């Protein structure tokens, strides 16, 4: 095939590249923001559990801390959903979905898990939210041609995360 011939020449001589740019200017997308937000959701759930097991239950300090944890959980679950919506809406193309047909269902799953992470304090749901976003990150980096690695987050709740292996 002629393409293969030209590609072989390119590998040998390195043809100049012509940019068919997208976005203004060439958007910076990174699922790490959503990943960290989702991780924060689980962290807030853990803090809520710890507070519930303390001696201050029902007292002023308890109410103050608990309402703050809930507010942060709400906010970060929504932020994570927002970040994924932006990447899905602005970056992901039809061709990407063709290559990764699991993307639409995964996107929908993240939205649902994010909603439930706000409605409840169910840690398993929170962990599933983190995992689904990690899975999204894995696909995102595959599209970008960047290898990934799995490592535990260097802070509580130290869940396993997907990071670009740069």
């Amino acid at each position, binding site marked *: 095939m002629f393409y293969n011939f030209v590609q072989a020449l390119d590998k040998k001589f390195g043809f100049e*590249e*012509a940019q*068919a740019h*997208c976005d203004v200017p*060439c958007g910076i997308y990174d699922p790490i923001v959503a990943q960290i937000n989702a991780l924060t959701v689980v962290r807030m759930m853990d803090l809520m559990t710890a507070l519930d097991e303390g001696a201050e239950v029902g007292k002023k300090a308890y109410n103050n801390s608990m309402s703050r944890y809930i507010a942060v959980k709400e906010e970060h679950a929504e932020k994570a959903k927002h970040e994924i919506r932006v990447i899905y809406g602005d970056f992901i193309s039809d061709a990407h979905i063709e290559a*990764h047909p699991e993307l639409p269902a995964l996107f929908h799953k993240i939205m649902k898990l994010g909603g439930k992470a706000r409605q409840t304090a169910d840690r398993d749901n929170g962990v599933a939210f983190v995992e689904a976003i990690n899975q999204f990150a894995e696909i995102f980096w595959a599209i970008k041609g960047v290898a990934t690695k799995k490592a535990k987050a260097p802070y509580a709740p130290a869940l396993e995360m997907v990071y670009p292996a740069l």
Partner: protein
Amino acid sequence: MFKILKIRGESLTPEYNQGDYILVITHSHTIARLKPGDVIVFQHPVYGTMVKRVEQIDPQAQEIFVVGTHPQSLDSRQFGPIPRHWVTGKAIWHIANRDGSNRAS
């Protein structure tokens, strides 16, 4: 007179995909006779060597309005028409990667 360029980015998808090659004619006579629909290569002072499709040419102002086909394409809709002297060539042959294995996706 001629050069081969490699496409990077997705603003001309689905027709031109990342990794495709184009044969470009750099002859000034050809550049002087561009018409809407032509795929051209030009040197943008900020974004470097770019490839886009000609939508409109203003012969008085010697300006060319260039667009991509992707909705998120960065083109004249953002940076305005480009002066003709930025144009370095016109694509005359599209060497597509038919099996798609080298596409960005």
